[in-house]
């Protein structure tokens, strides 16, 4: 089964004598073409959930598999390979590299894995065209608006044709119009390219674009009807 599976995943942080249970026995499957949202108050375990799903953190218990590969046994080097090839991150604003042009932001992902081919460049240009950024490919991040920056981040996350897209508060710092546009674009790309996608957000206006919504509270994940 492709996509993302979490089986009985727990994450416990040890701080002195205190134990914080950030994730408590979470089980979830996201299939290709499915776009789900995770909501919850701050401190509820949203970021931990995203980090564990995104191969940034290893769970304390349970198993995470991405595209049928269990990641709990992988070393840091292999994890970064998984992140590069199988996961696309859309992070909060201003997470583009300041000294690269829009096109280079996408190509750097290819460079991390080796060489940049002519096909890769073509693919990047097509992605940017899809997102309406063709006229901006030579611009630097500081010359773009917040919405445009997020579009570049979306394009970057799709660059390696990953199986899983993870979005961390992609609409933070955006006004309603731009926020709607950005999430709509994510939904559209996810559907047309058949990716499994998870968006962590506290912006309830954006939930209409998602197939289903989960709420996380004190580390416990439950489906919202």
């Amino acid at each position, binding site marked *: 089964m492709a996509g993302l599976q979490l089986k009985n995943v727990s994450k416990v942080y040890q701080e002195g004598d205190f134990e914080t249970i950030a994730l408590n026995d979470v089980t979830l499957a996201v299939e290709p073409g499915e776009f789900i949202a995770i909501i919850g108050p701050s401190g509820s375990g949203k970021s931990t959930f995203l*980090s564990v799903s995104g191969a940034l953190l290893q769970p304390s218990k349970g198993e995470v598999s991405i595209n049928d590969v269990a990641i709990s046994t992988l070393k840091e*080097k292999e994890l970064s390979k998984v992140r590069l090839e199988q996961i696309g991150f859309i992070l909060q604003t201003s997470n583009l590299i300041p000294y690269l042009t829009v096109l280079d932001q996408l190509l750097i992902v290819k460079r991390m894995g080796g060489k940049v081919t002519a096909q890769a460049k073509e693919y990047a240009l097509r992605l940017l065209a899809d997102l309406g950024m063709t006229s901006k490919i030579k611009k630097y991040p500081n010359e773009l608006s917040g919405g445009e920056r997020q579009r570049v981040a979306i394009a970057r996350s799709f660059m390696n044709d990953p199986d899983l897209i993870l979005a961390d508060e992609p609409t933070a710092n955006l006004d309603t119009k731009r926020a709607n546009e950005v999430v709509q674009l994510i939904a559209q790309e996810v559907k047309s390219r058949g990716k499994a996608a998870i968006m962590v957000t506290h912006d309830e206006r954006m939930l209409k674009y998602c197939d289903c919504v989960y709420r996380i509270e004190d580390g416990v994940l439950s489906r919202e009807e």
Partner: protein
Amino acid sequence: MFLALKELTYSKGRFIMISLIIILISWLVFFLAGLGNGLSDLGAATLKYAPIEYAVYEENSDFSFSKSMLSESLADDLLKEKGVTAVAPIGTASASIRQKNSDEDTASKIDVLIAGIRPGSFMEPIVTAGESLQASNPAGVIVDRSLELEGFKLGDNLTINGSTQEMEIIGFTENQSLSHQPVVFSSLEKLREYKYAAPSSDNGIKDVVNSILIQGKESEPKEIEKSIEGVQVGSKKEAINAVPGYAAENGTITLMVGFLIIISAIIIAVFFYILTSQKTQQFGVMKAIGGSNWFIIKSVVSQVFILSVISILIGILLTYATAAVLPDSMPFNLIPSLVISYSLVLLAISVISSFFSVLKIAKIDPLTALGGKE
């Protein structure tokens, strides 16, 4: 390399400031190295640049020209030793010289070191003006060019102060100095007539010289000491260090340059470390989207490398530009081998000091890319 260059061209201002620091440091290092070498040339240039491997002295003379007396005939015996390809007997004497027929009390006198050599031997310097020593003219001498600055010219006749000996300048040469005195190359005969003028001051040694310099990489100093009685053989280095004052002087300069290099290493390391620290978030993002440690480290180290190479090259240019306007009396001699070795040291320091940043990079948690840890 790609990321490194992109960032260099994007944040020009910041990198110009950093390279300015490296430029200034390398300028100072090269300049001090040049001055240091110039000073050490004054102390022992004639020996430093001599094409010799060993020097033979009288036993127990501590490799000192002034304490050692040998017979010139030993040269022939040395030539028969294994590995010895050429020999050059040498005798030295301090003297002060003045123009012939000038008044002994009022004329300006110059302290020099007279080095008696065999005309045509490998110790005879290349003349930049005039002609080389002639066996037929034992009074002819080749003198260091610094005497030209004192007003001496080709064809001038010289009188040695406090002696009746006279010499004639037939050639000028460059960078010949020993014990901070310009060297006057004369025939051995002339030197003996002056230095051993007093009866039996030569201890009864026939054709006395102070040392016999040896060429031949294969020669074996221990064997020579065994087979020829009453001699000691020193390496070129030992001979140079035995020049009075040379070792102490050189030690001071080396210490200064050494400290300068250690301090610059620290400064450069701190600069790159701060630069890396400022980019923690950025590197976190790169790691989150799949950049390996190696990818990021490569980009940082290559950036340091590019920056250092450019800065050091500019530092070298500045040093030569400064040297061009220095007064001739300032001892400055920056030889290419020094430039190359100090450049490599500076480059190595920059790159090694960037490894502290590398440690930092390896520790950056890709989680920093997310909004915040819970």
